[in-house]
């Protein structure tokens, strides 16, 4: 089957029922989505499917024929950070970094669909993402900066 990831079309050999997470990580070597729980509970596997944050550990890859998948590798690079990446870096929204890709994509999608998102909308967008290191305070500072920057 074919999967388009970060703008590049790949011919994928994995079985269509294979979770997207393991196709991305094992077959395509795209490792920013993480296997935090493989139960849909932590958000660390989050990717964007046609711009929507989805749990890649729960989606069979075969269901995504024709969809555009975006991971953190697709939104910015060390030389050209996306605004949300720059905000997380400047505001220390990351400690161990394991949950960070999921938070970045959820925030990125939030800003795209609700550019003036308030705290309640931010909480709602990020409620399903677990972080054990930061206590969320600096993540929220980063998100509010990213939202503010987008206005």
């Amino acid at each position, binding site marked *: 089957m074919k999967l388009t990831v970060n703008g590049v079309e790949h011919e994928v050999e994995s079985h269509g029922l294979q979770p997207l997470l393991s196709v991305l990580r094992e077959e395509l070597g795209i490792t920013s989505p993480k296997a935090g729980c493989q*139960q849909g509970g*932590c958000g660390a596997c989050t990717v964007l499917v046609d711009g929507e944050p989805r749990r890649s550990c729960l989606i069979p890859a075969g269901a995504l024929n024709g969809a555009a998948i975006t991971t953190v590798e697709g939104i910015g690079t060390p030389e050209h950070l996306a605004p949300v990446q720059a905000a997380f870096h400047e505001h220390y929204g990351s*400690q161990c*970094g394991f949950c960070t890709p999921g938070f970045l994509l959820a925030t990125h999608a939030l800003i795209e669909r609700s550019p003036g998102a308030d705290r309640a909308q931010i909480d709602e967008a990020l409620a399903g*993402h677990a972080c*054990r*290191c930061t*206590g969320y305070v*600096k*993540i929220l500072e980063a998100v509010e900066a990213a939202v503010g920057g987008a206005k």
Partner: protein
Amino acid sequence: MALHTGRGISAIEYPTGMNQNGDPSQAWIKIKPDGRVDVFSGTSDIGNGSKTIQSQIAADTLGVPYEWITYDNSNTDSSPLCTGTFASRATFVAGNAVLKAAANAKQKLLEIAGKELEIAPEDLEIIDGEVIAKGSPQKKISVPDVAAAATWTYGELITGTGAQLNPYAAIVDPETGRVDSPPHAAISYAACAAEVEVDDETGEVRVEHLWQCFDVGRAINPTLVEGQIQGGALMGLGLAVLEECYPYYPSVEHRGGEFGSYFVPGIKDLPKIDTIILENPSADGPYGAKGISEMANNPQPPAIATAVFDAIGVWVTELPITPERVLRALERKEQGPRREGKWTIFDDDLSVRTVAHEKSRFRFPVGA
């Protein structure tokens, strides 16, 4: 149904370094031919930011910009031993090893600079990557030039090594627990106030506000210190009101195997957090630093439990303070503690004397 607000406080202390010491950390440094600095440390960065902190320490001890530091903790072939990232020792103990290695490398840099400038090393200092004669700032040589001279003129590799080890503090009398020397590298202190809102119909406890004051000795990187305090606050909140591996402890039944049945604090649990950082420098820590990352989740649970009492007049002494425990405590509220002579006795129902055999070695005597 009513919501009740309450406040509670706590004051705690916590030791830096492994209990009784004897936990070495080592580091070594080499200077590249262009003056850039490679730091090799064995400390795992588990998110606490030890790569950053130790790089900051190396930079200032050597006198070079932070951007010149390359930090490598990636493997045991090139990095020396660090006992581990726990016991709040990554900044204090491991940081001291890096500091010593940097001081050691600095000495060798100054010796070579001294030869180039024809000035005694003790009359030189390094500021912002330049070796400068004390009192005569026009006499100077850049660290890159010193490194180049070392490589191509003197045939020297500039390195530094450092090791930190507080000797093991033995228990000299196991009957009393007395030790022969301080069993810690330093002690850190914190105090906390918690404000909660309790729903007396559902039993739910919502932590609304935490005020936290930590004495960290010296904040090597204040933002990273804040991050530890904030992360610790949520972890303490989880221990206090949300998390439990064994819902029917001591039974092992009905353990939750997934996020829906184990409650880790999420963004919606975040209270308002006010953080005050005090700096009362340690005697022996790098730049006066003390460890704080472990204690960061210790002061909240007792402050929260006390706040629950303040709110609804019941003491819940089993963690987590679940709605069920709150409601059961409210049912028994009128009972209060037992009085016997000058004793005020709480929690009979939880004690060894109630639950276990009367001749149990663990029986804790109470009462007149």
